[in-house]
Each structure stands twice: as C-alpha cells, then as structure tokens.
C-alpha cells in the first residue's frame, strides 16, 4: 500500500462524518476546526517523518472527541501494524489523553475499547504491554484471562511473568493467588518474585509468607522490604515487633534497618516508642555512627518524632 493510499484507507468509512459533531450539553468547548483539520491532515499523511507525525498527534487530543473521522482515523493508525510502532503509540497516547474528558469521550469509548481488545495480542510487545495495562485498569475480563493463561502456560504468555503479575494487581482476584505463591517458591526471575509478593500483599492468608521472607537474611533487601510493607498492612503489630528486633540487630542489612526504622517512625505507637529507652539509645548510636546516609536519615525521622520531642 502506498503511503497516500494508506492514509486514505485510514479515514475511509468515516468520510461522511467529518463535520464536527454538535457540542454535547455540558461538554467543554470543542477544538478549533481549522487548526485541528490541518493537524489531522498532516498527522495522517504517512509520507511524512514519524517525528513530525508524532508531534501532530499531540495536537489532536481535543479533536478526537469532536470529530468522528479523527477518532476513527486515529484508531486506524493505532491498529495498522504496518505503521511504525512509535507513530502507533503516539496515536494511542492521544486517544488515552482524550479519554480523560469523560463526558465528551463517552461516544468514543466503545470503538476505542474494541480496538484495545483487538490489540491485546498485537505482534509488538510494547503495544501489548500498554494495551493490557489500559484494559486491566478498566478491570477488563478478557485481559485478565489472557494474563492468567500466560502465567499458567508460559509459551502462550503475551508479556513477561513479572509484568503479568503487576497488571493482575489492578483487579486482584483470589484465583491469581495460587499462581503467585508458586512463583514466590519457584521464581523465573527476581522481578517476578517481587511482583508475586506485591500481589500477595492483598491476601490476608499470606502473612506467613511475608514473615518468612522478612526474617530470612539470605533474601535480597528488596524482597525483605516488600515483605515489611506487606506485613505493616496485613499484621501491623507483628511488623512493629519485627522492625524493632531488626533495628536492634547490629548484623542486619542497613537497607532493611532503614525500612524498619521508617515503619516505626511513621506508623508506630507513640506511647510505646517514646518510652522505649533501649531502642532510643540504639537510634542515637546510629545517628552518631558512620552508618549509611539512608539509615541515618531514618534514625533522624525516628528521633525527631519520639526522642527529641
């Protein structure tokens, strides 16, 4: 397809609707028709450079809601796998930005989401990433099924396991927990393990998993910090006790100690902590030591709240 023909094909089928639609009651003022028509003509001209077209897409956010031809044309660019990925992503960004004008975008939602669903299996990994994210943020059941299927059968996965777990956390369902637990036990990567733990942090039955990871000094600081944050929400009293123990333990990781001190400073019980002289002395020692800046900063937060008061 020649560039000119392709541009024509994109707007085909919507030519009769190129007149700006009448402004809906209560909708914000539409874009200037002369400005946006020139921008749309330029943006849909596939003979121009990608950079120039991308710049023009940025000017069309309002026009998408005002003119069905622009909406359809933009969706056409988005779905056209022969168009460069950068240009397609710019079209996606413009559609997304337009979707923020809820009332004006309302008639555009059905074709927009139909296009997104069709793009969930796009050949471009980056397009799949973004589209599955958009769909999951709308709690789309098709996207959820595709992501779960990919975790169960990695050869069919549309995105890496860590990304799938991250996206599933937009609409946490108990059906995802068994897979997440399996990944924590047998992680394909450290990122996947971290995302599986984040997802399980919504599960009150996973307290034991987080206790185990937090107290295991062989775990990475990141995994232990995620576990601390999860425990602070799921079992705050347990975390507060563990956090104190970790701060008192001079053999502990400074990063995990800093997280523990932050948890105590931010969420601890003032009546208990302000009377805890042993802990206060330990915090003062950290402050005056040559420890890493991060833990000294946490110690300062704690001291400001509970010692210097």
């Amino acid at each position, binding site marked *: 397809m020649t560039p000119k023909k392709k541009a024509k094909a994109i707007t085909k089928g919507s030519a009769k609707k190129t007149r700006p639609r009448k*402004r809906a*009651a*209560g*909708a*914000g*003022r539409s*874009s200037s028709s002369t400005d946006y028509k020139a921008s749309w003509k330029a943006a849909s001209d596939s003979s121009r450079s990608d950079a120039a077209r991308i710049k023009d897409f*940025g*000017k069309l*956010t*309002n026009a998408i809601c005002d003119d069905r031809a622009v909406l359809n044309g933009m969706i056409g660019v988005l779905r056209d796998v022969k168009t460069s990925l950068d240009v397609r*992503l710019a079209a996606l*960004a413009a559609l*997304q*930005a*337009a*979707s*923020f*004008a*809820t*009332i*004006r*975008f*309302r008639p555009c939602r059905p074709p927009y989401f139909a296009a997104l669903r069709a793009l969930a299996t796009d050949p471009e990994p980056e397009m799949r*990433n*973004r589209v599955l*994210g*958009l769909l999951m*943020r*709308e709690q789309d059941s098709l996207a959820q099924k595709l992501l779960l299927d990919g975790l169960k059968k990695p050869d069919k996965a549309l995105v*890496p396991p*860590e990304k799938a777990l*991250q996206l599933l*956390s*937009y609409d*946490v369902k108990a059906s995802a927990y068994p897979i997440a637990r399996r990944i924590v036990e047998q992680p394909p990567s450290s*990122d996947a393990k*971290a995302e599986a733990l*984040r*997802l399980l*942090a*919504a599960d009150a039955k996973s307290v034991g998993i987080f206790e185990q990871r937090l107290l295991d000094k062989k775990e990475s*600081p990141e995994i232990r*910090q995620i576990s601390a*944050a999860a425990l*602070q*929400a799921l079992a705050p009293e347990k975390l507060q006790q563990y956090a104190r123990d970790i701060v008192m333990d001079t053999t502990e990781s*400074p990063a*995990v100690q*800093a*997280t523990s001190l*932050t*948890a105590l400073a*931010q*969420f601890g019980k003032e009546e208990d902590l302000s009377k805890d002289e042993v802990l206060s002395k330990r915090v003062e020692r950290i402050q005056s030591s040559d420890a890493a800046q*991060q*833990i000294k*900063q*946490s110690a300062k*937060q704690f001291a400001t709240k509970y010692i210097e008061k």
Partner: protein
Amino acid sequence: MDVALRINNSADPRARYVTWAPSRCSIRVTNTTGIIGLNVGVELRNRPSTAGGQVLFSRNATGPWSATLNLSLPRIGTSVPFFVVGRFGRPSLADRDAVIQVRRGTTIVLATPFMVRIRKDANALTPAERDRFIAAFAQLNNQGAGRFVDFRNMHTNAGSPEAHGAPGFLPWHRAYLLDLERELQAIDPSVTLPYWRFDRPAPNLFTLDFVGVANNIGTVQFSANNPFQFWRTDGVPGVNRRPFFNTLTAGANVITEAATLALGTTYDGFQGMEGNPHGNAHTSFGGFISSIGTAARDPLFFLLHCNVDRLWARWQRQNNRFDAAQAAAFDSNLPAGNRIGHNLPDTMWPWNGLTGAQRPPTAPGGSLAMSLSAPAPGPQPRVRDSLDYQGRVTQSARMGFDYDDVRFV
C-alpha cells in the same frame, strides 16, 4: 504594656497562615502599664531575616503595601484593623519562621510567629519541605486505611463525569486539591501541595527520596527512608508508573506553559487545556496515572493537578478572570447550560452529598475540610466559589492557598 495580635481575624495560633492575598488582622492594647495618654503609637514590621517568610502591611485590603506600618492604638483596648500579604518571593520555608514584631520605640512588645504558606514547585523544595510533605501524605494514606481512601474514591470512573469533559473540570479539581491539602495540614500545618511543572525537567522530583523511580516494568522504587514505600491503595501496595520521557532531562509530552496560557483569553478557549497539557501529562506515563479510574492511586497525580490548577491561576491573573459575573471567566454555555455540576450556581459532588439520579451512586468523604485561616469556599462549594480563590472580587472568598509564581499584588 501588652498588646494582642489577631491574624486572619482569629486569636487561635492555628489560624496564623497567610498567603499572597490579604489577610485581615487586628491589634489591641491588653495591658496599659506604662501608657500615658489616650493612644499609644506602635510600629509593625517583620523580624529581620535573610530567609523565610515575610509580609507587607496596609491599613486597607487594597493597599498600599509597605514593609512597616505605624498604628495608633487606643489605650482602652479597641481593636485596630489592618491587613497583611505575604511578600512575593519570600514564602516561608518552615512553620512559624515568619515573625511580626510590634515595637514601641526600640522595644519589642510582641513577636508573633506565623507562616507565609505557599504552594511551591516540587522540583525546588528543600529536603525538609519535601520530607514533611511525604510524611503527611503517607500518614493520610496510612497504608490504604487512612482518610486518603476518600480522595481515591472521589476520582474514579463512576465520579468522573462530575469532574471531566465539561467546564467544571478546573473548578472541581481546585476544590478537590484544597480538600486534600487541608487534610494534610491537619496532620502537619506547614505542608502545602507542591506542583509538578510538567513542561520542564524535574530531576529533583523523580528521585528515590521523593515520588520514586520506576524499574524496567514500571514498579516504582523508593529509598528505604521514604515513607511512600508503605503506600497502599485498593488493597495493593506500591505505585505503578512508567514514564515515556526522560524524567531527569525532559518535561512530559505536553505543550509549553506559554502555549497553554495562549489557548484563549476566554475560559471557553482556555479549558481546551484539559486535553493538552492535562491529558497529555497523564498519558506521558503508563501505570496508575494514565487512566482516570486509577490516577488518584499515584501521589504524583496530585502534583500534576496542582500544576493544572496553577496554570488556571496564572491564566486568571493574566486575563483578569476571577469574577463569576464576567462571561469570559467561565463557560456557562448559555442558554442551554451545562450538565449538572458544571454550572456556576451548581454545588459540586461529592461535597454536596448528593447521590443517584444524575449524580454518582455514592458521595465519599463528606463535606470539604474547613480551615481556620480561610473559611471559603465552605463545606459544600459551588462551581462559582472556585473562581475567586484569592478573594480579589470578594475578600471573604479567599481560599487560603497561593502559588509561588502567581502574584496577588
């Protein structure tokens, strides 16, 4: 001799927060020891300092404004009114770092600490300002169990038509930010919402110590001493945000501030900013912030909208669009009018508590938080109440916030 000073018409120290807009004050004699005659002359001035908040004084709300003010106080204790404005360019750096000194001759008879509390560029906050903001915000969230849940639930797909795609977009978000800011100030009164100037690089904002840095899949990482590491919304910990621009060297994929301010001299044209830069700023990322229903799960969302509000404030000042009676200050779309919630006399959801019919099924959060330093816009704000935020048209309409680069005087 003793005197008593009231700031924002209140003797309560919690009311001692001023902005660039005039605050009504008064002073009176409370102990006449040493006073000879019917009146005593005093001078009001700032405590000399090279940093921190300072004010200018005037007998009237309209000025003229000066660094000192001489007043004659009746011996019998009658209050003498005067006004102060924050001295532009001299906002406070910490709570009560500003002091009004009342002098009789060379003797300081009263020193009243207060704060010139101003919304600032997030990229230029001091580490202490940044840390206070984060600590208060994390406490408001309280791992998903705090008051923040109401703010998260106000900005969802269900409530979206109250706030997006129609002329009430800017007024609604102004009230929303103010409500959140007042809740933060209930935790730490020195905190204001900072703004993310999204058309410029903000290397001090996108750091582990502030709003975090995304890993390769867009899970945001925080430093171990950053309370945001405990951030939790919708039962899930953390923040997802993947930037599609270099956060250290570039702004987001938006039109410039100058281009935004040139969108039109009437509200009708200016409100096009809801698309670009507003929408484009949101979609310069993947993750929570890039969809309406999840955007409020990311703390950065509030800094983004603070800049949207600041742009409106700048545009209002540039074009003198503060008066709801002025057609160009709002898009009333007459005679048809706008959707409910988007007309000047309409009360705004959820603060009005209205549900069902044309409103969303629930109204989270109750009425808008009150402030001792500025009573406006009241518990159930109308769209029109958001326009005169500095009290230019009606002094009592002042909402108690200002931006570091938007003057009053």
